[in-house]
């Protein structure tokens, strides 16, 4: 597939507005603002393209925009770009922002025009100092050339974009946590409804979209929904997509391909990750970041990397962060590492999550250290079942149970071996005992 989102990455001065304009940048903004295309027509085009949210949830951006009230009763509408990229295994938005900031800015201008937003913000995670500086410089260039500010290109449309740095909290990637954080509070998610589109930041209608999603919007407006829908496996899973692959592979990195790229191609393809480091066998693959249930080596056959394809395997595409784990890794140790992350990042608001995540981590630590009891294995599953499926305000707990629950189910023999033999079960024998 022709590169779309990453087409300019690697080119000289790809961050500057001059090269962006030379490559045809901001023509979409010019066309929309001078041709009389209405905001409703922009929304309709994005809806038609079925641009599903690239941050993790896969919800249609156009449909989300459609939830905005027709009459806001004098309240402004806010657009927040979610650049809080913190899902372990994910590093695509960092690449987009650091290398082609104007692509994102153009996407935000078009989205803001569509939803009638006057003030938009980029909520960027605190660790991305470079990304924030690069975006600020690019925003300055866009103001200087008249693409941002009052009456853009002589139209009646005005827009300001502000870069807002987070300060280290995974939960601020959850859209209502992000809204709380931008309001100057602890980033603790809100109960929904009301959904942000109705009442979000500062009690005003608010749209939160991921970096890659907004970049897709730019291309949909440039080339049309029909073009977008033709890329990918089917119209429900369409468009160009960035895949982040890391772990025990030869060539980890961000690869752009059509939605629906077979998982095996991404791992073994010559133009992608080029197979397993040292020729080792695969033990497990996490297909969508830390929050996604693990897949076994057998399950990765015939697994298209798109929202519905990975869901059919009982996991999720999430942020398209593929972490590949080889036969030498201990699955209990992997689950313990992931549980440590969730235990640290729980916002502390809901009891099942605040208490459950460190409990899972403690039990996993005990088993991994060879001090576990046989009943601990079922205890893990029991804790998981009491944390998720609507027991909490947000889906963090549902994410936190994915690694222990999926690994206990599929790699139970490794857990039992840890309890009885007090050490890891790896290699060929472990592979024979996988239950899926």
């Amino acid at each position, binding site marked *: 597939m022709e590169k779309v989102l990453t087409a300019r990455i690697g080119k000289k001065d790809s961050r500057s507005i001059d090269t962006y304009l030379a490559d045809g940048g901001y023509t979409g903004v010019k066309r929309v603002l001078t041709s009389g295309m209405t905001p409703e027509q922009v929304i309709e085009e994005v809806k038609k393209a079925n641009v599903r949210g690239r941050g993790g949830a896969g919800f249609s951006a156009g449909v989300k925009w459609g939830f905005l009230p027709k009459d806001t009763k004098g309240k*402004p509408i806010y657009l927040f770009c979610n650049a809080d*990229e*913190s*899902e*372990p*295994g*994910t*590093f695509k*938005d*960092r690449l987009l922002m650091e290398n082609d900031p104007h692509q994102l800015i153009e996407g935000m201008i078009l989205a803001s025009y569509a939803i009638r937003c006057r*003030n938009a913000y980029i909520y960027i*995670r*605190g*660790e*991305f*100092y*470079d990304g924030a500086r690069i975006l600020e410089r690019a925003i300055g260039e866009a103001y200087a050339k008249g693409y941002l500010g009052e009456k853009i290109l002589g139209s009646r449309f005005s827009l*300001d974009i*502000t870069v*807002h*740095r*987070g*300060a*280290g*909290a*995974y939960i601020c990637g959850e859209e209502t946590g992000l809204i709380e*954080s*931008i*309001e*100057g*509070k*602890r*980033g603790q998610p809100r109960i929904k409804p009301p959904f942000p589109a109705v009442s979000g930041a*500062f009690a005003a209608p608010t749209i939160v979209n991921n970096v890659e999603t907004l970049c897709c919007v730019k291309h949909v407006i440039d080339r049309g929904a029909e073009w977008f829908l033709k890329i990918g496996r089917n119209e429900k899973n369409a468009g160009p997509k960035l895949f*982040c*692959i*890391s*772990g*025990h592979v030869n060539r*980890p*990195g*961000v690869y752009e391909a059509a939605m629906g790229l077979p998982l095996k191609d991404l791992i073994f393809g010559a133009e992608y990750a080029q197979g397993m480091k040292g020729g080792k066998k695969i033990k497990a693959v*996490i297909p969508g970041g*830390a929050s996604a249930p693990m897949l076994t080596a057998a399950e990765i056959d015939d697994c298209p990397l798109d929202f519905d394809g990975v869901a059919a395997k009982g996991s999720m595409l999430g942020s398209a*962060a593929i*972490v590949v*784990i080889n036969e030498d*890794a201990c699955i209990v140790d*992997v689950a313990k*590492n*992931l549980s440590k*992350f969730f235990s*640290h*990042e*729980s*916002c*502390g608001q809901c009891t099942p999550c605040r208490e459950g995540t460190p409990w899972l981590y403690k039990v996993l630590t005990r088993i991994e250290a060879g001090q576990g009891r046989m009943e601990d294995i079922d205890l893990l599953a029991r804790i998981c079942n009491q944390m998720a499926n609507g027991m909490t305000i947000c889906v963090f707990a549902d994410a936190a149970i994915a690694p222990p629950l999926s690994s206990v189910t599929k790699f139970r023999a490794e857990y039992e071996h840890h309890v009885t033999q007090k050490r890891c079960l790896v290699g060929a024998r472990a592979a024979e005992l996988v239950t899926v």
Partner: protein
Amino acid sequence: MSHTRYRVMEAGEARRFPPEAMARIEKILTRYPTKQAALLPVLWVAQETWGWISKEAGEEVARVLDLPPSHVDGVLTFYTMYNLRPVGKHLLQVCTSISCHLNGAESLLERCGKRLGIGLEETTADGKFTLVEVECIAGCDRAPSMMVNDQYFEPMDAGKLDALLDRLSREA
């Protein structure tokens, strides 16, 4: 939620933002519909001004934003990147999340601590280095990844770590 970097209550002097910091804060305030919304950016200004955020610095932030100091404190302790204690000149942040973990992050972290003679959340006696463990910093394709202050260093290995620490030690 930050579990370990809570502030030690210290007796300090009253703080006032210097004029250049106040100028930055005025500019920040023009970008938000409420003063409270500027809290995170203003806390960044405080940290850049003093290197860390003392109880007094938190109170100064509360004063300029017309917020209760308790609210500022609640927010400060929620996020992990605000330093609640003085940190060394070089804040070493080693990622130990899954992709880095699979690529030897723990031994990197251990080597760091051994070479500097400090544990996690500790600062060397000369005030040069503080060592912390951090969650995924989106450097998974260049694992193991680490940051020193605001700069990424990736991918790391024992040799590169030694060279980096040597270079930073030599700096004045």
